[in-house]
């Protein structure tokens, strides 16, 4: 029997509460210890999380830094390719294409799935890129300044 609402993002406590409310005759704290239930649910969530991780390419003990473009290839993450010459873009695209081809899953490959959908776990941390990005929320549009209103 599936546990309702159980995903890798679930909070164990909430699931336990819901189970107890739904099945008081079997799972009330008088019959089953809450800590036992909690442990069981946590294990189930953990299992879901690790299979999601496996799908995403394996679990590593220490998270390596996120790979980025290769400075050795003549460009890095801060190089605005839009500003390079046509030849330079072609060259950069060639370097990137190597990774593309390496990781490519094509029709006919065993792993090929036409509509591969992966729902990723709620990210635990914000990207450091956001530290440098100033985004206007649409509601404080810079086209608009109340002081410009003249009556």
């Amino acid at each position, binding site marked *: 029997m599936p546990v309702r609402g159980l995903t890798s993002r679930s909070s164990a406590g909430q699931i336990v509460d819901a189970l107890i409310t739904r099945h008081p005759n079997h799972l009330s704290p008088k019959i089953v210890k809450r800590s036992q239930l909690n442990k069981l649910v946590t294990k189930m969530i953990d299992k879901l999380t690790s299979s999601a991780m496996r799908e*995403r390419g394996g679990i590593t003990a220490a998270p390596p830094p996120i790979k980025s473009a290769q400075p050795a290839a003549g460009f890095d993450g*801060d190089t605005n390719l839009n500003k390079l010459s046509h030849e330079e873009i072609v060259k950069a695209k060639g370097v990137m294409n190597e990774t593309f081809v390496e990781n490519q899953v094509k029709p006919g490959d065993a792993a090929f799935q036409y*509509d591969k959908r992966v729902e990723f776990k709620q990210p*635990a941390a914000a990207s450091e890129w*956001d530290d440098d*990005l100033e*985004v206007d*929320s649409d509601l404080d*549009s810079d086209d608009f300044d*109340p002081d410009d209103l003249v009556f």
Partner: protein
Amino acid sequence: MAAKKDERIKIILLGDSAVGKTNRPQQMSTFALTLFSYDAEIDGKKVPVDFWDTAGQERFNSMHPSYYYNAHCCILVFDVTRKVTYMNLNTWYKELQDARKGIPVIVVANKIDVDYKVTERSFAFAGKKGAPFFFASASDGTNVVQIFEEAIKAGMEFNEKPPQDFVSDVLSLLAEDWGDKKQ
């Protein structure tokens, strides 16, 4: 073209050079302004869709206005291995909204296959714009079909009932508020 013009959904791809906009399973080519048409089936209904790709014009940091003309949805792509492509989303978004106010946008973080660890990070841009966000890999196919489907659905909705400049409405309401406070 078989369908009436107003039934066609135009979806445009936008973002910096080499973020992987063109590396779709269909492998659209990038020699000229590229147009890829096909009939999608959404909820049992055949929908003619045109996908427009930039054909390298993004190198001029700006697209010709005809690119945005009558577009119904925009897939805005950045490359998770290159920060500059994320920083430039602001510029693209602004140009897009200036040209086609209120158009629905889907933000895509592409190339996650290079390092799946990147999916453990959140990227605030989409949320601040109220746009859906997807991690994707055009290389291994993760979420690609889903993104195109979402884009078609959003485009259909925009085509049927374009928001009557919702943002302007909100702003004018806010302006009334401000006006009151000032007095």
